[in-house]
């Protein structure tokens, strides 16, 4: 473990811990810019986090330890996912064969405990959010796995760091069409998983329309802080996947890092643009949207497996 690798891993850990809330800031600022407002400062999410962690909390009488376990497991799962996804042109913190399946199932674990925490409060709104989240996940998950599987099949490796590494450059040259399909599919999955506009409206006030926000309706103070932070890391994970597929630069380390961080910001801006340009889809149409994500990835799989 030379000094240089220690420094690299430290750098990666810092990025994983520090960058995610910044993405939320960028999205908020983009939406404000679109609406002609000045918008909150880029570091607003950090301020919110510190404020929330310092506050006391109000807990419903019907809840049990599951209510607290929800946000905790969500955060752990998000960090684990971040550790497995390759960062800045190089490899991920942790890479082993078939880690993209563990990634999907760890996110499933987070989803389990978030939904359980929502049901723990016994409120009809949180139950509604949990039910919707479960239904949409049932269609988003296969798309996610098929997308990653397509790239794995194309590059021959089964590890995220493997197939999102340098070998993807060759795939771009050979089968760029299917990669675009995969990227589109993963973008839709990103929007669904991180409660972005077409699937869910993050800052609406009408509980009946929410999906993710309503699941954490009752979490207050530090609990909500942990939830927020977990959600941001999860957004970072999906964005990082998208960036590593879209911008496969690995050669000069500084350029790779720059491209990676720049890519994250570009993805955040893209999300902000989509949120400003579109309104939330009616609920019965969301499965149709996610089904199209599935079809994209399946088509990519078929094309690549030819």
């Amino acid at each position, binding site marked *: 473990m030379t000094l240089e690798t220690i420094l690299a891993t430290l750098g990666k850990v810092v990025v994983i811990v520090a960058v995610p809330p910044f993405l939320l800031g960028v999205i908020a600022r983009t939406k404000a810019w679109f609406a002609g407002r000045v918008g909150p400062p880029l570091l607003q999410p950090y301020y919110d986090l510190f404020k929330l962690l310092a506050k006391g909390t109000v807990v419903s009488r019907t809840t049990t330890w599951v209510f*607290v376990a929800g946000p905790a497991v969500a955060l752990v799962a998000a960090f684990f996912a971040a550790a497995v996804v390759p960062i800045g042109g190089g490899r991920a913190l942790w890479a082993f064969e078939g880690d993209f399946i563990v990634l999907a199932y760890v996110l499933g674990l987070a989803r389990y405990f978030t939904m359980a925490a929502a049901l723990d409060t016994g409120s009809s709104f949180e139950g509604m959010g949990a039910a919707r989240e479960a239904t949409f996940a049932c269609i988003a998950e296969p798309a996610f796995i098929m997308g990653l599987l397509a790239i794995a099949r194309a590059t021959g490796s089964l590890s995220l760091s493997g197939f999102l590494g340098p070998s993807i450059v060759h795939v771009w040259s050979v089968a760029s069409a299917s990669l675009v399909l995969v990227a589109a599919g993963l973008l839709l999955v990103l929007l669904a998983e991180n409660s972005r506009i077409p699937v869910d409206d993050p800052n609406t006030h009408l509980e009946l329309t929410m999906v993710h926000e309503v699941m954490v309706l009752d979490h207050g103070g530090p609990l909500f802080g942990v939830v927020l932070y977990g959600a941001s890391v999860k957004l970072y994970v999906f964005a990082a996947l998208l960036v590593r597929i879209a911008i496969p630069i690995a050669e000069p380390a500084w350029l790779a890092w720059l491209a990676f961080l720049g890519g994250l910001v570009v993805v955040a801006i893209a999300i902000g643009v989509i949120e400003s340009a579109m309104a939330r889809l009616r609920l019965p149409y969301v499965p149709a949207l996610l089904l199209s994500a599935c079809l994209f990835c399946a088509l990519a799989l078929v094309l690549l497996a030819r």
Partner: protein
Amino acid sequence: MTGCFIALGVLVVSACAALAFGRGGRAASAIAACGAVAAAALALPDAIAVLAGDVPAEVTILWASPIDELRFGLDPMSAFFVVPLVVLGAICAIYGAFYLDDQRARRHLGFPAFFYNLAIAAMLVVLLARDAIGFVIAWEIMTLASYFLVTFDHAQSEVRRAGWVYLIASHLGVAAVLSMFLLLGSHGFAFTDLAASGRADGGAVTVAGILGLVGFGVKAGLVPLHVWLPEAHAAAPSHVSALMSGVLIKLGLYGILRTTTFVGDAVPWGPVLLSVGTIGALVGIALALYQRDIKKALAYSSVENIGIAAIGLGVGFWATSAGEPTLATLGFCGGLFHIWNHTIMKGLMFLGAGSVLHGSGTRDLEQMGGLLKRMPRTGALVILGTVAIAGLPPLNGFASEWLIYLGLARGGSAADSSVGLPLLFAVAAVATVGVMAVLCFVRLAGIALLGSPRGDGAAHAHESGRGMVLPMTVLAAFAIAMPFVAPLLVDALTPLLVELGVEAPSSVAAHDALVDLAYVGIALWSGIIVVYLVVRRLARRRRESETWGCGYVAPNPRMQYSGASFAEGMHRLLPGVLRAKINVPYRTELFPPPVDLRANVEDPFTRAAYEPVLDRLARRFGQLRWVQRGLLHIYILYVVLAVVVTVAIVSLRDFWGGP
């Protein structure tokens, strides 16, 4: 082998003793439980020894005709199934003793104890049998004993119906299995002779293979044949459904594995098991989603898990025929470990459901709620069970699915497109099943344990005694420990893989994968514990108040999301035939009278396929009734006609030199 025989003796003796002391109730259950535990203690070392590479023993006992001789043996394949049988058998026996205790006054507890031990003994003989007749006799005794266990409280009509459906299905299954043995039994009935006549190619061997698949598939619960499983598990007392779901249906898979050793590749086992498994998994979890009775939901989840195990075995067989030992090892290890894991998880879940039923007095999800507050220990164990059975990482459910995933993914990405694509789409299918399982089991745990109680049974629920919680804790410990123990067990499976036809099984790939997973497990466990403690500490300054209902002041439990509404989103996306028939009379009057919604949640295969066919057949038979109309003349006419017609045919045939 001697350990197993002594265990058999202990089981049968304790069963009869339990029957004798039945009147005492508690004495009977205690004797039976001790018998089961002693048998486990005796049989386990034998099985583990054979698994660890000891030379398999074979015993031949000469018997009176027409059986002529009975052969018994313990080879890696049997030993692999003996371990879960005796372990879960002992645990459920202890649980059962306490579970049935409060019925001591009303019921004669000797009988369930007797049939319980008899069932375990019969299953042990099934696993030890090395000749067809001994196998079929033990198989049917197992069916009869489990039938009497399922219909323990036969006062309720649906229990009787469940028992009856189980009896018919098993009987038809045995008929198919018997025909297979007879088709292959031309040289003799020992398994070695069956394998010998199995090597001769020809249509008969393929037909025998298919008969074996169908016959054992009924017991394993492969999809079109699974209709008896949900009703039987819902009707049986919980420790019996745990035993049945944990071990009995696994013997179906054991039977299929035995058939593959007889029939060899006259039947393309890889693709067959893969497709049957995928369909089974998808249909099983789709039906488990909207079940209102938690034990039925768990039973359908068993159908799903058997499907996943079949997929694992399918990958193994496909890779063996394609000549890739590493892939075959991955598939087989995945499939076989999933059998062990499912035994642990499903046993824990059914015992948990039993404890919930014992505490809250109901199995109906819509009457439960808030049980975690009232039954903290059972609640926690059930949540751990649901996480495991949904196949989520740190626990054992994911360990075996993980190997199956690797087998499928590696096979898919390496092989050419004609074979690769189905494998890759199988990965997608298993992923869908996994995420639907998460939905199904969050629904079970969430609606039953969390929130506020919906029925007064749940409101006054009381925690189960130590006797019921301890067995569940043991199973939970297995579930937690399994992913870390798995890497050590992989090379224990190599003799079994050789028996399944893998030439040079290299368990390196499987070993490395499990080691990676162990690290993932350690990371996740430590992360969750640390972060949970930190978050709890952060949120220590807290104030209790009502749940936020958007300003609505008087919330009541009925406003909570119910099981049906939770699954309704996904239920609507299911294909039409799998959906429950919900009929709501549509009233158009100005002041419509109260209307009730009735959902027919009967198994779609029974409702759409089996019942109509059987009804039509019964009516067709009914039309034959006029033959017995009561008129004496007609009866005598039958006799006369019988003489005249037969004489005519015979003499004509003779006259014209018939054959």
